[in-house]
């Protein structure tokens, strides 16, 4: 039986996998709509619908780029999406600027700046950095709201007059879908933590978790028990048989907020002390780390269920004191069993 949280996570997982294709789909739908509107229009505008046709072609090309991208990622997909929308806006601005009057100049320049700004954002996305996420979310939110009102007004008109404009509803629905998808994508974890400031924050947090014990840090009790018994009970440790000097190894995952690190406890051949390597990600390459030797562990209570902190020593030097998380009743029962 899958729990509610697990099924929720499963849905989120499916959404994450399909995000990239969803963006491509939005571009395809939008370009199909543009081609449709050109062929169903009563009369061509001064620009001869060149901007709509170009915009549709660009969107289709970018959708293809997203679908067949060998290095697929949400960030790159949003980058291609931004290129499509940005280029479309630049082309539209040329079509507006072509009508030489003051109003067209103002609107055309706004479109041109918006388009160029989006193209600059796309460059950042390709460089794995999210730019203008909040602004994009605000504008998508407002535009989605406007389209929702359009749909509601169409419904009201239908209720009062019995007439319905399917074309208007279709346009509003397509745009609403586009903005909602964009909103959801802009709030994915991959994008949320890829802004310049979040990347900086992740680096600093990762360095802190690996090299320092924060004042509010608490060790999980089962990990604390492993630490407490590192010299007398190594039944849960794994033997290392790579031909190197390590005999036994135990990894503890330390989580402090969003960022975690791994404490690698190692028993080396010919040495009774335990070598500890604190590393930010034990599954990747381990090069620079916080390395120290532990010669003694002192808990504040001998009972595994009651001790609230452990102190680590290297000879005459105290290395750190780590607080241990309190157990709730359910966990206490589990521990005593």
């Amino acid at each position, binding site marked *: 039986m899958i729990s509610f949280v697990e099924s929720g996570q499963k849905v989120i997982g499916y959404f994450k996998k399909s995000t990239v294709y969803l963006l491509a789909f939005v571009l395809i739908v939008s370009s199909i709509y543009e081609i449709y509107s050109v062929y169903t229009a009563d009369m061509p505008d001064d620009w001869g619908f060149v901007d709509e046709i170009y915009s549709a072609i660009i969107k289709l090309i970018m959708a293809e*780029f997203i679908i067949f*991208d*060998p*290095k*697929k990622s949400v960030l*790159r997909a949003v980058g291609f999406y931004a290129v499509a929308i940005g280029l479309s806006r630049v082309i539209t601005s040329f079509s507006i*600027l072509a009508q*030489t*009057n*003051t109003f067209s*100049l103002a609107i055309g320049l706004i479109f041109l700046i918006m388009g160029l700004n989006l193209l600059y954002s796309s460059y950042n996305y*390709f460089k794995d950095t999210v730019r203008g996420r909040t602004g994009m979310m605000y504008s998508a939110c407002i535009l989605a709201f406007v389209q929702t009102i359009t749909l509601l007004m169409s419904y009201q008109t239908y209720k009062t007059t019995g007439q319905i404009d399917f074309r208007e509803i279709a346009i509003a629905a397509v745009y609403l879908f586009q903005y909602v998808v964009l909103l959801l994508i802009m709030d994915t974890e991959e994008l949320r933590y890829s802004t*310049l*400031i979040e*990347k*900086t924050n992740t*680096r*600093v947090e*990762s*360095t802190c978790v*690996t*090299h320092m014990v924060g004042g509010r840090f608490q060790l999980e009790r089962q990990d604390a028990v492993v630490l407490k018994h590192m010299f007398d009970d190594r039944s849960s440790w794994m033997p290392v048989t*790579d*031909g*190197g*000097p*390590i005999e036994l190894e135990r990894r503890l995952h330390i989580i402090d907020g969003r960022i975690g690190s791994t404490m690698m406890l*190692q028993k*080396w051949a010919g040495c009774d002390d335990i*070598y*500890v*390597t604190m*590393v*930010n*990600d034990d*599954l*990747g*390459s*381990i*090069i*620079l*780390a*916080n*390395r120290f*030797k532990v010669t003694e562990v002192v808990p504040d209570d001998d009972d595994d269920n009651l001790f609230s902190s452990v102190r680590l020593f290297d000879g005459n030097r105290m290395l750190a004191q780590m607080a241990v998380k309190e157990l709730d009743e359910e966990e206490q029962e589990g521990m005593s069993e």
Partner: protein
Amino acid sequence: MKRNEILTVLMGIIISITGIYFLIRDINGDVQPVPGEVLSDVMLIVGGACVALFFRKDLRNGTALSMFTLGASMVAGNIYYALEASEDTQTIFSDVYLILSAVMIYYSISLVFHSTAGSTKGLVCIGVLALIEFGPMCYRIYLGADVIPTIGDNIDNLVSGIMHLTVVFILTRKGMLLETPTKRLNRNSKLLSDNMCSPSQAFIDVHDIDTILDDSQGWTQFDKGPIISQKTIRLYNTDVGLDLQRWKGDDRTYLSVRVLDVDSYEVPLSFPIESIVLDDEDRSNATRMRFYGNDGVFVDIVIKDFEKEKKGYIDTVKQRYGKNRKKDDPVM
């Protein structure tokens, strides 16, 4: 002269030349210059010359002096019009110029005293000045006016606008832009992380295993210092790399970790290698390589085939047409 120094000198020269142009025009022109205009020209000449001659090696103060010169010269040249009790366009523009110049002077002084971090706000002011100078002229041309006569009528604005745009262009070149707090924070956190944390996505190319394990290849000899020879192994997906070193009077090979492609660096980890093990005896199947030292020190590196790594469109095209990775490419 370094690139930054050349750009600073160029900026100073352009400011001075603009000053000389306006001075000649004021002296020889048909219209009597208004009070402050000649002073404004002299300020440009002297300020630009000072930037080029004395501040080419001092980016921060050079930037500050350039901004101050432009701002002060603008104030001197426009104060007369601004104080005139008239509602014509010149007076309105002069008011705007004065406000922008005051902001520029404020930021230039702040730069000198380190009370502001970056030069962005000052540059925005110069950019707006250029926009005001070019805007009306471009607008007339857009509405159908003849290009050459319009430019002829606005030649002063054109010269001034070009100078302002050139200053913005120079001060936004790589190495010339004073960093904003966010960018400084980003750079410092990266430095901190590069020297204290493992770049977990880093890997060595499977073809580099032979270079590491084969003692006879890849060594660069040194004549000076305690290191006799060294070979550098590039780690992909990171700026960090490994140096394998042989020291005088020691048979062991040392492993050093450092940031590559920079002039100055610290070595955060260096130890004599006692043994190197692979997680698979068959080198082509190995996925991890461990370097063991003494006293609990080890380095564990992921091995991947660079050729098989996912690449973007541009890298794929480069690879297909023979412009694929150079040995020194830091990132895919």
